């Protein structure tokens, strides 16, 4: 699709706002509509749009497969890590309130870290799925 000038220019214009919007949805998720999964999908969609127009190879030069796989694992570990941390903090698994002396504060911290973990995992998994299927001949 590299020969379509309109597509190339428009997608180049669109990708940065999409990624920015993903970050907005990500950080907004603990109070309003949004959250890690939606943000991850939007972020992944930005990368996938780039890949659709410029080829999966171009995405790979930004985010190599090895990095994506590592990030996906780290996202899941971040999630599980919060669970373990709240156990160490004296609560039960995923009881964020135990993360801080003040339970409300702990809940905030917990859900934000969880959502970041989900966001990272979802964004990288979406991109992995696209790249693998696109390059698989």
């Amino acid at each position, binding site marked *: 699709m590299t020969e379509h000038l309109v597509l190339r220019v428009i997608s180049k214009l669109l990708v940065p706002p999409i990624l920015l919007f993903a970050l907005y949805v990500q950080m907004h998720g603990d109070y309003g509509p949004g959250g890690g999964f939606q943000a991850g999908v939007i972020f992944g969609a930005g990368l996938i749009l780039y890949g659709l127009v410029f080829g999966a190879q171009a995405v790979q030069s930004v985010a190599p497969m090895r990095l994506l*796989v*590592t990030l*996906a*694992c*780290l996202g*899941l*570990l971040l999630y*599980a890590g919060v*669970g*373990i941390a709240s*156990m160490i903090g004296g*609560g*039960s*698994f*995923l*009881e*964020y*309130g*135990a993360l801080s002396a003040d339970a409300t504060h702990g809940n905030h911290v917990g859900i934000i870290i969880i959502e970041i973990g989900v966001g990272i995992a979802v964004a990288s998994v979406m991109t992995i799925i696209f790249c693998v299927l696109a390059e698989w001949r």
Partner: protein
Amino acid sequence: MIATHLPALQVALPLIAAPLCILLRRDRYAWAFTTLVCWGLLAVAALLLDRVMSEGPISYRLGGWAPPIGIEYRLDGVNAFVLLILAGTAALMMPYARQSVEREVAPERRHLFYAMFLLALTGLLGIVATGDAFNVYVFLEISSLASYVLIAQGRRRQALAASFQYLILGTIGASLILVGIGFLYAKTGTLNIADLGVRVHALGEAPAILAAFAFITVGVLIKLALFPFHVWLPNAYAYAPSMVSAFLAATATKVGAYLLLRFVFTVFGAPFAFGTLPLKEILLSLSLVAVLAGSLAAVFQTDLKRLLAFSSIGQIGYLGVGIGLASVTGVTGALVHVFNHALMKGGLFLAAGTIAYRLGTTDLSALNGLGRRMPFTMAAVVIGGLGLVGVPVTSGFVSKWYLVQGAFEEGLWPAALFVLLGSLIALAYVGRLVEAAYFRAAPADAEPVREAPWAMQLSTWALIAGSLYFGLHTELTVGIAERAAAALLGAP
């Protein structure tokens, strides 16, 4: 402190271990790590079962939210017992995994294989441990998706088609369970299984509850692979890598049986399922057909793994008979058979895998004269096979004893007759294996075969020896199963 968190760790440990496995990258490390985790899980499961047996049910509040609003992990005799079976078979199979996986899976995919294995285990453990109906669906899909991927790793291309077929049927089954859970939630406003039991009981015969029951039962039967819903099973087990066949045969359908027990007895209650609705007649007739048809089909197979897969369909029928009898003896028989069949069929599939490891095929004609060339492996096959028949001294005898006794208690002597008839047919297919291995000469041009590596022998024999041990010492299995069955049936 850690003791209070054991229920969460039981599920969280493999979930955390899976991404770590991917990050380890080297397949040997991944294998060693997975083995470590599986033995850890076995220790956790044993501690939990011990605590449940001495102190009664354990409730763990996930995220600290009190049930029925929050998600609760609730362990009683039934699921603590099944957790032990799952973790135990996984742990015993891990020594086998390294060489088998090195032979059957491409090098760049091995660490991913172990990660998938851990995810499948996470899902299965989660289904059993959780006390939340929607969690059941999520864990069911985690385990199913991981199993599709694992099955597709088989060396022959038929594995892909088998995996696809399982994906379609498995997803339909899980979706039906989802609809049922949706109806239950719409009608009762709760997702906690214990709470559902109380509220559904109060509602009586509301149409939505009837519909929920129908959807959930059919969905679970697809996952259990009981007779008319078994079509996905033979190909999936026959073409999957040896390790996967053994693991799934030992665990996946057992979890289906657990789900059936849990939904029928705890959520809907025996009077509703067996009194208001004709589940008894349906389940018994389907199961008896499964016993006969599965065993008969096994007799005519020409491949060892397919033979074992069809035999599994027959053995699942025995589980259905026990549950369908809906008496303490019947359910005890089913639970004991869940345990015994996991050992026997796991061991048999592992033995089939060692044969594939040495011969490169599991075709029955390749088995000719193998009794002298691979004596230990074939001895394991024979002992495991006798267990499937239900010969005294093997553990298969114990479970069938309870099933037959349960059938007589209910005055259903035809059911008892069918169970015995199934055993006779099992004798026929086991007899074919014995005949090929011991009474036929190896072809003259056969290449010399060495006995399988010791690590693979170890796993196979651990499971087979277990099935012998629990045939002689029934106090542990029957004792736990009887208490669990009484608790299930005693619930309102």
